[in-house]
């Protein structure tokens, strides 16, 4: 095999210009796919961090069975009681891969600065647990002022656009109003501790963050709507969902567990969109690679017809001729992919050194364009393009093998 590979390699170098054009087509196509894949990978990472840490969804959210369908109609029936909160939290936290399980409650109502009022949606969280969930995200989107604190339960955080509309700054007071679970109107004084950027234009004008106790008081309840679970690795999400579902069912607490990506609609939609774009680019590159290889190998067969006749006269079987040309196609794929890998690494290094910034749709602030280096994807694509080039070379290779020996020898 070594000798035929050597011969195939020399044949590729025979017409350097034509081979170079084909190799560039494969290489540039390869780099386009891998760079886009790296960009998509980094974007998914960012969106995942945004959902898990930024939105505070954690990796899993546990609802009492029925909450998602009928919870708004009869909240008290489908919320976790104090006893259940303790029991579920204990059961979940006994799992080795769980960092924490924390109860949360979402409230909605009106916020007023004493002059004007507007609607809000607030998440009631335990500050210490919330800081654990946020992790490094806090440094990425720092709060103007102070974060939530157990020491000042009436202190709240306000999203930046809402704070601007109501002229609420850290240290200022106001009032929040909401219906309790029993339907009574309840109002509570609050103090703005901090102003934060939710990261999304859609939520920056209506989001608040309360302490869990403050949210419970506003709804006049001691119950929790959900229990958010943080894992040590996002890749364990699905497996942990299965484990916890069984465990909670066995304990007599039937629950519904949602993953972070199921709850983050934005993530799902962006993922679907990028999937389509990736498929589109991949198909274009696929066509370019196939056409370039077929063209190069077709020309090679035409130019080397007499040589094919000679090899056949010397005793090379049809299969041997096919193999030789298919090998040349495969080598084109291999060398093109290696050139593409070098190009990919060069562009990746330049972008890493001088990252351009852009503002993605829906986000409120610019983000740096970052591309992941994904060795598994690069290796998979190398194999994929080799096989593709090999397959593309099979048509001209079969044509070469089928030629009549006498006609091939007489070809000029």
């Amino acid at each position, binding site marked *: 095999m070594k000798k035929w590979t050597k*011969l195939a390699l020399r044949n590729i170098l025979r017409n350097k210009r034509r081979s170079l054009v084909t190799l560039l087509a494969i290489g540039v196509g390869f780099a386009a796919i891998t760079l886009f894949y790296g960009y998509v990978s980094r974007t998914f990472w960012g969106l995942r961090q945004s959902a898990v840490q930024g939105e505070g969804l954690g990796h899993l959210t546990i609802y009492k069975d029925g909450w998602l369908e009928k919870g708004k109609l009869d909240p008290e029936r489908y919320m976790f009681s104090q006893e259940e909160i303790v029991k579920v939290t204990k059961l979940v936290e006994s799992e080795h891969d769980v960092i924490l399980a924390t109860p949360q409650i979402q409230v909605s109502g009106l916020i007023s600065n004493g002059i004007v009022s507007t609607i809000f949606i607030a998440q009631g969280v335990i500050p210490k647990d919330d800081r654990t969930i946020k992790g490094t995200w806090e440094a990425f989107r720092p709060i103007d002022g102070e974060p939530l604190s157990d020491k000042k339960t009436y202190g709240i955080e306000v999203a930046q656009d809402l704070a601007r509309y109501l002229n609420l700054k850290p240290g200022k007071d106001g009032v929040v109003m909401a219906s309790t679970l029993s339907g009574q109107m309840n109002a509570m004084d609050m103090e703005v501790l901090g102003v934060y950027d939710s990261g999304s234009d859609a939520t920056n004008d209506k989001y608040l963050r309360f302490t869990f106790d403050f949210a419970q008081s506003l709804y006049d309840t001691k119950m929790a709507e959900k229990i958010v679970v943080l894992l040590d690795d996002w890749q364990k999400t699905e497996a942990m969902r299965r484990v916890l579902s069984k465990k909670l069912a066995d304990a007599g607490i039937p629950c519904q567990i949602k993953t972070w990506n199921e709850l983050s609609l934005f993530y799902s939609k962006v993922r679907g969109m990028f999937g389509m774009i990736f498929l589109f680019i991949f198909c274009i590159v696929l066509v370019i690679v196939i056409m370039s290889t077929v063209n190069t190998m077709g020309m090679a067969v035409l130019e080397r017809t007499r040589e094919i006749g*000679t090899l056949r*006269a*010397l005793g*090379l079987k049809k299969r*041997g001729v096919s193999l030789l040309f298919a090998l040349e196609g495969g080598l084109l794929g291999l060398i093109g992919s290696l050139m593409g890998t070098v190009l990919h690494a060069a562009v990746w290094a330049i972008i890493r050194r001088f990252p351009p910034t852009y503002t993605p749709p829906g986000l409120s602030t610019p983000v740096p364009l970052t591309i992941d280096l994904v060795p598994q994807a690069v290796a998979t694509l190398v194999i994929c393009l080799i096989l593709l080039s090999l397959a593309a070379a099979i048509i001209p290779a079969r044509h070469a093998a089928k030629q009549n020996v006498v006609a091939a020898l007489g070809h000029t």
Partner: protein
Amino acid sequence: MALIEMTGIKKDYHLGETVVHALRGVDLQIEGAEFIAVWGPSGSGKTTLLNLVGAVDEPTEGSLFVNGTDVRTLSDNRRSELRNKTIGFIFQGFNLVPVLSALENVMLPLQIKGASDREARKKALSRLGEVGLGEFIHHRPFKMSGGQQQRVAIARALANEPSLVIADEPTANLDSETARMIIDLMRELNEKDGITFLFSTHDQRLLDRVSRLVHLEDGLIVDGGTRS
């Protein structure tokens, strides 16, 4: 048993609507160690005859035995094996693989046969030595003269120690002096190793050296020839 035994061989070609009768019923027997030339005017069927004997083409009618094997019953793969092991080819245009060195060109039939690199290299070096190209083993064809290239082609034809070497106009592209050297070399190999040489030629110097002359005209052997 004759090395080649052709009986009633006919070969027709279709050129559009027209049928060309290249061979019209040829009977020919070639024994081992002969040095035979096929001659005749252009279009008389010389190359067709050589192609049939070399098992690169199939007759329309008649029987053809090479070394006792009925070529017409062989599959394409078996005919490839027959060519590789039994027949060597020398072409008018040398037909060396341009990306291979002289040594690699001569190793080619051995490697096709499945010989190890070491064995192929050893035999190829020996054959190149025999044709006087021991110093040029790493030269690519484009760096060699026509005579040197034809000698590489002869070494390649002999690499697998064939019983028969077929040469189509082997001296046509060579100058007189080189042609004479090539003829001497083929004759020497024929006499020394007992290899049968069958070639088509118009070259009188070559015709003067053959042991037997087959004269073809209009697809028929008009004179089977005798040993000169």
